[in-house]
């Protein structure tokens, strides 16, 4: 018997080398900023534990919000924006100021939105592209990289 034929069982795996957290937001700057602050602090903690920092994936497409996050982030390279994700949830976020419309959207569009979110981030979804607001480069993630979800006042369906 040699080791070559021996199955190696990893009792625990610590090799999540490309972890990401999905950030869910509502209208205005505040939810994104809240998500960012929590992400930054979590990464400080992870680094102190010598774990790789996590990427935060934000549903943001507007240059104004990108600029805001870039100015506020501890490490802009850890902040990824996903315009496809932003498009899927845009109706919920944009309607925050118009209450009647907002309620209609939540009441009527949740089913479709859920489908689209699952296609993007669900367990059977493909790899997806995001853009790092630090480097400006495309960062590709697998849905399996998502180790957690932080919700800062979103009104759209979950991906569980």
């Amino acid at each position, binding site marked *: 018997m040699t080791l070559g034929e021996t199955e190696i069982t990893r009792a625990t795996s610590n090799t999540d080398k490309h972890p990401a957290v999905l950030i869910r937001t509502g209208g205005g700057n505040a939810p994104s900023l809240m998500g960012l602050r929590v992400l930054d602090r979590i990464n400080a903690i992870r680094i102190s*534990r010598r774990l790789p920092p996590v990427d935060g994936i934000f549903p943001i497409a507007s240059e104004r919000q990108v600029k805001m996050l870039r100015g506020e982030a501890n490490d802009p390279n850890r902040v990824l924006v996903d315009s496809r994700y932003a498009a899927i949830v845009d109706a919920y976020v944009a309607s925050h100021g118009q209450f009647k419309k907002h309620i209609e959207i939540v009441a009527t569009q949740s089913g479709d939105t859920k489908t689209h979110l699952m296609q993007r981030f669900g367990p059977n979804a493909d790899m997806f592209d995001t853009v790092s607001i630090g480097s400006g480069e495309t960062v590709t993630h697998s849905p399996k990289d998502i180790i957690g979800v*932080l919700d800062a006042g979103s009104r759209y369906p979950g991906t569980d």
Partner: protein
Amino acid sequence: MASQLWQDLRQEQLHYDPSIQVSDTSLAKAIERMQEVERGYSRIFLSKVNSFSYLYIPLSAKTMEEKYKALGHQPASHLGVPIEYTPPMSPNTAAVPPKDDVTRPAMYVMFSGTGSGVAGTNALIPDLVAAGYDVYVSPSAMKFGDVSEANQRLVKVASDPNIIAHPLIIDGFARPGFGTIWDNENAGKGTNSPGHNPGDDHEMAVNAKTIAALEIGEVLAPGAIPPPEELRKSKVQIAFNAGRLKEEQLMEFGTKDGLGYIAEKVAQGPIGHSHGEVFLSEDQRATIRAEEEAVAPDVSQGSKVPFRGRYRHLDERTLGAMRSDPEDPPLTVLEYDPGMFAWGSPSAHDMVDAALSGNNNIQVTTVTSSLPESPSYPEVTYKSDLKSVPGEFDMVRMLHVGENLLEEEYEDLRNRLGEKVKEGGFFLETQRVYIPRAAEIGFQPPHHIAIYQKQGGTLVHYTDFPDGRYPKTQRELQNFHPGPERLYILDKSTTEPHKLVS
């Protein structure tokens, strides 16, 4: 919670003008959708002072101490999801005192919300000035024309968004959204508002009730402003209450930074750890720690290292299956991660400590991802201590298999070991044990990479854990320790196994 707010609106809007009412059918559906979202949370963080806090503050509570105590009775869960209460969740991290040169008692007036909200806010400014206050507004309120022409000469423009924290700013005046309330709470200032406009976000109406119940603000409706003397009195009282609320929250949480507080809590769970780690509760850790201390008081620095207190469980099922096969020797080689023992906590520090205390001439393998130019604790601490040990060390890297290795590095290590093992017909096991102050209890230092020879087709080693029980104490561990003759430590440069000299 949005579902709660909308539930409340369903009742309240019956009193509204039908033309601004939201369709009840839509509301009911939207509530259902939001409840689905909320049920999906694993836990909910809610600021201690939140929209519905007013429901828990009885009229009999007069002082802030009594009111704050009543907040302790807020629900522990929502739709079955546990709620953890937090300090204000303001993302505003300004810690420096505001720069604005405020010279007289003043109010900070923020414009937000709908058109009528802006008009209501404008209507108040002359009254505030008449009551003797300077009125500050944000640059954007001037820029975007929120401040009426008539009021422009009455107000001053605040250059610092943190002006609310200025000692001479008595209170804030704003639409009572939580972004503003949190900032004001942290500054120990009240939040006054122009009153709710039924077409506006219902949350504002609910928030105002909590502000009223805590007496940290009041509704100053245009045309119903109390006379200057009375207004000043109530502002002073509100500022006092808000200051007390700030104190109460600081006393409870020890921080004003709700988002940092949440991050700390989140990081206690999977997001703060490696995949597959299981962590024990505070109570469980305390029990284990007490047991450890009873056996071998840990007076080393080990009790203070960041790794201390992190516990993991071995995959019982895997190990159980391996042991329960009496016919065949186990075919699976198990790789132990650090700190696997139910009672133990991993720490490279303790490993080195134990080895050095045992006067062992050790060669330390190179495994963790720390680099000489950016050493991280505990390596950096022990680099100097190791000077007394024969041999040259560029750095000290302890085996944290899987702890924080990059996948490639880990695989490389395992492969190199694997090759070595195959050549000699050995079995490989990577393993760590935790022995604080090993020498003091007369214990042999632990090994961290060990290679065992196959003996008649049986891996004797596994019998060291009878009945699936791991050693729970150092004394139990002594019985399991294989002894120096079977212990090898890999040389960092050659990967040749060397016998440990004890």
